[in-house]
């Protein structure tokens, strides 16, 4: 589906540029680009739709027309090249070509790393220029003083904090 959409988009863009170049040559004319008629049968290569609505090639040359005529005869008289040519007239990609790995994962992984790295740079910049200084309660000296004060106040003496401190030996039990 994605490939189909991108194909349509590509054809739309191509049409648009051609129309724009045509209109720029004539300058004043306001031409409306003709859109793709979605109600018409369209060709698409999909694994789950083996026979699309339309042959890939609509307009045939004389040689291809004669090949089409030859197809109406016995198929065993067709050569290997002619069979492949007939296949290519009706279909764009074979199943093997459709299933070929595209290597798109490299782009995806690269994009992920790029944006994660960029976010890291933003966070780094924020640490330097945006964030306030660390609170004093984060200092080790402050935390040591706080611990000492909690022990002095005998916080939770039964089963909690102070219960784990041996006051006689001056160490943790």
């Amino acid at each position, binding site marked *: 589906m994605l490939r189909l959409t991108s194909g349509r988009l590509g054809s739309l863009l191509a049409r648009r540029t051609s129309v724009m170049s045509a209109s720029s040559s004539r300058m004043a004319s306001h031409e409306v680009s003709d859109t793709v008629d979605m109600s018409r049968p369209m060709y698409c290569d999909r*694994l*789950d*739709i*083996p026979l699309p609505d339309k042959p890939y090639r609509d307009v045939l040359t004389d040689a291809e027309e004669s090949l089409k005529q030859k197809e109406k005869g016995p*198929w065993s008289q*067709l050569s290997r090249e002619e*069979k492949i040519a*007939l296949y290519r007239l009706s*279909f764009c990609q074979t199943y*093997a070509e459709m299933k070929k790995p595209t290597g798109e994962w490299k782009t995806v992984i690269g994009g992920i790393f790029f944006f994660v790295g960029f976010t890291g740079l933003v966070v780094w910049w924020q640490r330097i220029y945006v964030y306030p200084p660390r609170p004093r309660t984060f200092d080790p000296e402050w935390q040591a003083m706080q611990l000492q004060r909690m022990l002095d106040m005998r916080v939770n003496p039964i089963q909690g904090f102070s219960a784990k401190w041996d006051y006689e030996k001056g160490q943790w039990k």
Partner: protein
Amino acid sequence: MFRVAVRLSVSGVRGLTRPQPRCQAVLASRCYSHGKQETDEEFDARWITYFNKPDIDAWELRKGMNTLIGYDLVPEPKILEAALRACRRLNDLASAIRILEAVKDKAGPHKDIYPYLIQELRPALQELGISTPEELGIDKV
């Protein structure tokens, strides 16, 4: 009021004592009315009949094949033979090759299905002059 009750009860008793066969038939059919399950043979026969239509047109071939490939199964060789013969009647060699490709893809990880299909289809392929994708070399990029 009593008359109505008596009439109702009499008809009810009569209904109990003299069961009507027609009524039972309706009941019986209702008991089994959860949709008829199509057997595999019926499925195969239906699709063979579809593709064997003498004046099948290109749309019907495409529609039938796309629908058949949409199911969670690999079609039987006899269905495929009917489809290939339909391609022959429509003078469409490309679709015949494409059907073989689609069936190979449809078999998925089960690598033994496609050789079996080709083995079963070999007489038809030779008769119609259809080359398999392997013979044409389009099974590899």
